[in-house]
């Protein structure tokens, strides 16, 4: 029988995992994050296996879908030499092993090519984009990446999945954005052109190029095996996606070490998952945590986490403001673009009318003899050239304006969109950090609860002991007379106990469950949880001696595990704090650099436009002045 360490928590967790199972039934590695039973049994200090093929789910009864695999994996673990007998293990090994060695070889070859690295931005480039046939014979738009003199063709969807995988592999790193998918609406409006539109392709080409460059600049991404494989033409991306480390990733990054999600400790998988909706209370909970120093023993977060928090808050506020302004800017630029566009259309019309104007005067007198024509038209003839010149000016301004408007896309909108996506990514990383803290708070809450319970139990135990002791003393002193009195007390207690035994066991588990949910949701529920604890106190008194001692034992056991979890959580927090801060600072600098770049780029282009218009008007003016 499995012991129920966390009361409701475990129940909730296993129900969640069952849901996971139902979602990905066919995945043999889905049991990865259910290691707690065996993991806790063996202890946390145990050396962690390199990949999941060795992580055997412990209780086959709770995972009906994976019994075969778990047993075979277990046997292979027991006797590695006889692993050939197990089909599943061979498969798993075949999938994982070669990649490890290959990725090692690719990383080993990179240093040889270091001379190329000097060029920086030209290290990687998308040199072409166009129709190609993938290995399955399907036509698609492929993007040809030139990297270290290799040509790799990847599709947009492959970039997309790469990004998603990276986000899961590196939860503390801001993954550079790629252009967003086509909106469904666009597809409905323009179903044929949507994917083949050369405009979209060229935009994507540029943005994907910038994505790759950004990735190379971030060492965590650059060093990642999956990213390396993406840039290696020898790998079929579909295969990469369906092999480790991607498929052994935990479904939730909160249940794995933040810097190494594919290698979770057994304790990680039993960590509680705070809901995303609890994020909005983060600031409140954090403030409470800082101000309430009461439970000194448990809630001692490392000083650096508390010290770093203001910096994170500052960055988050700053980024949120950036995001808001960028959204405004984008909206503004879009309206300006449309205004500019209609203005340039008017220029085109003006050009046409001025030109017609000049022609009209030229041919106004078709019948007259030439001398008469010259005589009569003399004044107008003189200015035909001027009118035409003005018309020409408007024509040229129309053209150069259209070119500038075209450039608005690439010099303003795309980079700003990219920035906005970057900021969203930063919020993802920040949220991950917050969730980790909330996770910590849940654990802390549980520990406090358990500790109270334990103290209550031991108190009662002590009291009963005292009563017993006094009883024993009295029997010795007062013989049989007092015996009856004492008996009168004892049965009463037993009677009460039996009455409420079944009730209390269900109550305690369900109340624990409820507590766990409440912690995450709101401040109000923090308070409501205290009366239930008082109730527990009463219930505790009604337990039998055996049950009490059993509970005390279990509580102590749970507490050690919970504290282990807490310490893991704290170390995770430290890792997240350091790593995400680094990444956020990278983003911080990147954003500032990008803004400066956008300003410069716009200025250059805009200046060129002004100069062209100016020269054009000057030319027209000089022509007008000439004939004066």
């Amino acid at each position: 029988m499995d012991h129920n360490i966390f009361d409701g928590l475990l129940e909730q967790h296993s129900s969640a995992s069952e849901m996971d199972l139902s979602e990905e039934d066919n995945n043999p590695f889905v049991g990865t994050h259910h290691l707690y039973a065996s993991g806790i049994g063996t202890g946390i200090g145990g050396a962690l296996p390199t990949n999941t093929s060795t992580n055997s789910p412990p209780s086959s009864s709770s995972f009906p879908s994976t019994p075969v695999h778990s047993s075979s994996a277990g046997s292979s673990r027991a006797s590695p030499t006889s692993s050939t007998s197990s089909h599943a293990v061979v498969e798993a090994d075949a999938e994982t092993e070669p990649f490890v060695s290959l990725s090692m070889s690719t990383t080993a070859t990179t240093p040889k090519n270091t001379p190329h690295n000097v060029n920086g931005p030209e290290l990687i480039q998308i040199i072409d984009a166009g129709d190609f046939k993938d290995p399955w014979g399907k036509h698609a738009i492929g993007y040809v990446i030139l990297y270290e003199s290799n040509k790799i063709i990847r599709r947009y969807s492959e970039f997309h999945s790469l990004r998603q995988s990276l986000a899961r592999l590196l939860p503390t790193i801001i993954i550079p954005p790629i252009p967003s998918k086509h909106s469904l609406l666009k597809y409905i409006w323009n179903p044929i052109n949507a994917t083949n539109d050369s405009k979209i392709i060229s935009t994507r080409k540029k943005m994907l190029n910038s994505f790759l460059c950004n990735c190379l600049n971030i060492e965590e991404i650059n060093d990642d095996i999956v990213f390396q494989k993406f840039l290696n033409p020898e790998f079929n991306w579909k295969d990469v996606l369906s092999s480790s480390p991607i498929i052994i990733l935990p479904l939730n990054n909160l249940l794995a070490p933040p810097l190494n999600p594919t290698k979770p400790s057994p304790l990680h998988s039993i960590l509680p998952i705070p809901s995303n909706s609890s994020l909005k209370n983060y600031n409140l909970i954090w403030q409470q945590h800082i101000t309430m120093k009461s439970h000194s023993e448990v809630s001692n977060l490392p000083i650096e986490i508390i010290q770093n928090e203001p910096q994170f808050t500052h960055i988050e506020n700053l980024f949120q403001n950036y995001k808001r302004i960028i959204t405004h800017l984008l909206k503004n630029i879009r309206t300006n673009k449309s205004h500019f566009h209609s203005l340039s259309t008017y220029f085109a019309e003006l050009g046409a009318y001025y030109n017609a104007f000049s022609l009209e005067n030229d041919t106004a007198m078709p019948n007259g003899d030439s001398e008469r024509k010259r005589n009569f038209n003399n004044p107008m003839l003189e200015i035909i050239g001027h009118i035409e010149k003005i018309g020409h000016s408007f024509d040229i301004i129309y053209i150069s304006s259209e070119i500038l408007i075209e450039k608005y896309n690439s010099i303003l909108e795309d980079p700003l969109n990219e920035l906005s996506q970057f900021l969203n990514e930063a919020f993802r990383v920040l949220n991950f950090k917050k969730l980790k803290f909330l996770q910590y708070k849940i654990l802390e809450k549980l520990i406090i609860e358990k500790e109270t319970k334990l103290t209550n139990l031991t108190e009662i135990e002590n009291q009963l002991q005292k009563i017993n002791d006094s009883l024993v003393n009295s029997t010795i002193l007062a013989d049989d007379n007092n015996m009856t009195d004492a008996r009168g007390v004892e049965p009463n207690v037993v009677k009460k106990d039996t009455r409420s035994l079944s009730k209390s066991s269900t109550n305690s588990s369900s109340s624990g469950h409820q507590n766990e949910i409440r912690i995450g949701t709101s401040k109000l529920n923090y308070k409501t949880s205290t009366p239930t604890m008082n109730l527990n106190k009463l219930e505790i008194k009604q337990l039998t001696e055996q049950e009490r001692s059993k509970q005390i034992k279990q509580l102590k056991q749970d507490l050690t595990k919970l504290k282990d979890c807490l310490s893991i959580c704290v170390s995770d927090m430290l890792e997240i704090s350091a790593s995400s801060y680094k990444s956020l600072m990278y983003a911080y600098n990147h954003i500032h650099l990008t803004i400066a770049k956008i300003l410069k780029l716009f200025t250059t282009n805009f200046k060129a436009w002004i100069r062209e218009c100016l020269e054009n008007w000057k030319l027209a003016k000089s022509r007008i002045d000439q004939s004066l």
Partner: protein
Amino acid sequence: MTDQSRENSTTKAKDKARGNPEKPPYWYEIIVSDPQKRTGDPGSSSGYVSYQISTKTNNTSFYDNRGNSEYIIVVHRRYSDLLLLHDILLNDFPTCIIPPLPDKKVFQYIAGDRFSQRFTQKRCHSLQNFLRRVSLHPDLSQSMAFKTFLVSKDWESHRKVLQDSLQINKDEVTDAFMNAFKTVNKQNEEFTEIREKSDKLDRTVTKIDKLFHKVVKKNDSMSEDYTKLGTNLQELQELVTGENEELAEKLKIFNEGVTQLSYGLQDLTKYLDYEYIVDLKDLEHYIDSMRQLIKLKDQKQIDYEELSDYLTRSIKEKNNLISGYGGSNFFANKLEELAGINQEASRREKINKLESKITSLTGELENAKKVADGFEQECLKEIYHFENMKTKEIKQSLGSLADHHIEFYERILEAWEKVDDSL
């Protein structure tokens, strides 16, 4: 006979007109500026706008020998004063193309924004165009009314007199438009061409005018966009200050460029709206005035043609009477015979009557012909003047259009050069 002689005479007149185009003997520099709202007479409810009219000229009579061309004559007039001047000129110079005044803009009166800067500035420019056109006209510029208008310190009393004189003649003027729907039978080829040309010009100018209206509107929204953009950038700059001073400085500089752009665009738009479009509108109106004149000329010609018709009919009738019973008069003659009237005597009497009528008609016809021919000559002279003026105006306004664009682009180029250097 008549056709040939007319042709000859007109060509002569034309040659004369074109050979030495008359130029006004003096030059005038007239500036209409500083529109100011004045409260009206205590009795009237609403005020009016007074414009300052400054004149510089080499016509010494303007100064009453009290100064020279360095001296600037300044008077204040309101729109209705200019309207009066216009009407007087129209009355006194029926054969001239009187430059048009801007519309009365009744709507603006109702909407109540006739004191708005946009409205008065535009009107200012249009009024100046009017006065300049008058001053450049050889005949109009020498009229007393023009001089009085520009110089008189005692305009109020003059106005009364002028208004009265106008009242008397008003009927005659309107008479000319009575048979506006009659068309000339024998239109001079040259006028057909002039008409076609002016129609075309009118259409083009109208179209360009409309387009510029749209451009002005768009420019306004563009400039508004830039202002908004500036606000956004300002906000961003404030955020970045303290984070990245270098970037904050860059944003500040960039924002200055945007602000300059916004201002520059506003100025350009103002020029387009207040001056260029007004010029175009005035040109359209000028074309209209020219058409009016042609219509008047046609009127004179119609008069002549009708007379000539009448004369031909009379001569024909006379001839019929002389040659005996005209087929058409058979029944009438029979009737008279039955009534016992002496046919021979009455016929002779009729012939006599007709003869005297023909003589007087011939005289009148010659008169009408003289008038029509004279009018046509004047008209051609005017049209020639108009063509010159129009060309000059188009040239000038195109030049100033180019100038303002150059100014705009130079200004923002300078601003953005600075931005580029600092980034």
